[in-house]
């Protein structure tokens, strides 16, 4: 290894006017927001919501969550031209400081299966003041029990902690919502991955 990695440092409390300007109503553009898939994207349109809780169980109001996911066909979109034509971005970013209950929320489509023997999921990164290094996790879906039971990575998680990765489907007046909270610590501490 010729060069050492640049260390990670905290995103701090004041990221919003740089990273999530639109969501927080600052006068700047953003390169990602809470819409991962626009209305024209193929697939089942869903909303993913949840909260981030600290070691006291208090809801964190200055976290930033990012999601990177496959489209409804299980393909990752890396070409910005594809994004423009399909309405599927693949990337989402949301701060927990604007919702009345300090939830994160993403409008997207349910991802397809990326490879045989895996369950659908989204990749998640958690950033906040008080984290010097961001943490990777995943959200799986509770109505995919059969595929979840065959997913190598999910099955590599100790059985009593697997539930921390599984979002619960709820039918709401406005559509399908998957709900999942991220617990930084405690009995229900979310499983984080060394990716």
């Amino acid at each position: 290894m010729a060069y050492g990695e640049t260390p990670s440092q905290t995103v701090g409390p004041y990221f919003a006017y740089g990273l999530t300007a639109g969501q927080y109503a600052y006068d700047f553009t953003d390169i990602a927001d809470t819409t991962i898939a626009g209305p024209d994207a193929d697939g089942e349109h869903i909303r993913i919501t949840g909260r981030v809780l600290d070691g006291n169980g208090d809801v964190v109001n200055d976290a930033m969550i990012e999601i990177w996911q496959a489209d409804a066909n299980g393909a990752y979109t890396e070409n910005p031209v594809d994004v423009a034509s399909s309405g599927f971005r693949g990337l989402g970013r949301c701060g927990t400081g604007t919702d009345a209950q300090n939830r994160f929320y993403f409008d997207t489509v349910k991802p397809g299966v990326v490879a045989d023997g895996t369950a659908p999921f989204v990749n998640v990164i958690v950033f906040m003041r008080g984290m010097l290094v961001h943490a990777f996790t995943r959200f799986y879906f509770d109505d995919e029990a059969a595929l979840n039971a065959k997913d190598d990575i999910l099955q590599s998680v100790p059985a009593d902690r697997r539930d921390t990765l599984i979002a619960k489907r709820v039918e709401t007046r406005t559509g399908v919502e998957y709900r999942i909270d991220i617990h930084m610590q405690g009995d229900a501490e979310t499983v984080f991955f060394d990716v």
Partner: protein
Amino acid sequence: MSTFKPRDWGSHAPFIAPGYKSTILRGPTQAPLAIKSGLSEGTGPRFAPASVRKLDFDLTKNGITNGEPLGERIVVHGKVMDTDGRPQPDILVEVWQANAAGRYVHKLDQHDAPLDPNFRGSGRCMTDANGNYVFYTIKPGAYPWGNHFNAWRPNHIHLSLFGPGFATRLVTQMYFPGDPLLELDPIFLGTEDAAARERLISKFSIEKTEEGFALGYQFDIVLRGRNATPMEN
């Protein structure tokens, strides 16, 4: 596509670094579970050149309302590369920072220092074919924070990059050489390895300094490298 080498935890801070008090209740207590990096981590968002507008790379101009921002004008140059020294082209670099007085535009920043009507403090740029990026800004001021009595953050600029994959995601801070606050700062010191910490400090460069206009700093950024063998699926 190839997979990325594992994160070198020796170059990073632990999740819980008690000197930085907020980590105590916010850092995960259990070790992260190692997983083999695959398509999901090896891919990542790409950004069209159009996602960077004309003035996005010039923070001395992109927040102007009625004049020039106050403070010391600087130009920051850097190369984004991986641990094997390979330059990383077309990488989006997002930046944000306090103004010259140490005050953030953010609504929650209550520090008793003036806002500058001509400085917002956020921008972005992209690396060129050789991995080089550049942005213009005002040198940010130090500011107090509540971590402990008389705690002050050293001058710093926040930077955010995806790199070539979701696995290479990096959010960091660039510091300035010779800052006496560095050795007192629990965030900087959160990285236990002193040699790794040095990589967070930019270098003053007289070559990059622009005659009569702006002091030059160099801040190279090193992301995780790739494994030699491509992944199977």
